[in-house]
């Protein structure tokens, strides 16, 4: 498995979208590839951090409302 693919599988597995076979291939690749090991651990760290954080984003309809407000106001200017 080339490094590019390894990173792709690693990304997918962060979202639990990698297949079993892919994960085995990734593990094998990581055994001998230091660069990808580094990327994998960074990636996992990022996921852990993001999971710790509650989703702090505004809801879509709130955003739509704000957007409409702005557009209304722009029309009157």
């Amino acid at each position, binding site marked *: 498995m080339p490094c590019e693919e390894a990173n792709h599988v690693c990304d997918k597995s*962060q979202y639990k979208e990698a297949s079993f076979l892919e994960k085995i291939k990734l593990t094998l690749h990581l055994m001998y590839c230091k660069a990808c090991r580094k990327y994998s651990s*960074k990636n996992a760290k*990022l996921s852990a*951090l993001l999971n710790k954080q509650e*989703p*702090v*984003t505004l809801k879509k309809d709130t955003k739509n409302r*704000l957007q409409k*407000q*702005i557009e209304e106001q722009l029309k009157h200017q």
Partner: protein
Amino acid sequence: MPNHDINPNNWVKLYSDYLYNYTITRVSNHEISQDLISETFMAGLKSMKNFKGEASERTWLISILKRKIIDHYRKINSNKGKAEVRMNLTSEDSEGNWLEERVLDPFDGNAESTMENTELGRAIQNCLSKLPAKQANIFEMKTILNYETETICNELNITASNLWVIVHRARTAMANCLEKNWF
């Protein structure tokens, strides 16, 4: 010195989450935060002519928001002494609204972890805002809002491999940024 442009049509898309995080850590109330952001946008539109482009749009909006937050606390303060009983720890119409309300539930976890959570939220938003808009948008949809790959692809009209390339770039940038600012 780079001159910054102003384009209110992109404000919601680019800054509303950032402003929300900034506000929620300061007023700890979802509704008030929303109102303050809305007021900030309106005030921004009114004084658009005064925008000289010296600071970025975001910095400029934050400076307006800061004034709004101060005004908000002034207002509460002047309401002191007037007998007013308001109990809205839980609202009846909380249906479908729980995503935001969960964010700063004072009874959920201890103060320390709440604080860390909001600080982390700001660090994440900060790093997100440094990404190119398209990357940030897709990364947010995929990682924070947890949309399915297929949904995002359909909505944005891109292929799955295209999406993964963008996600990969965003993840690399985010990991580096958070490594610098958080760990």
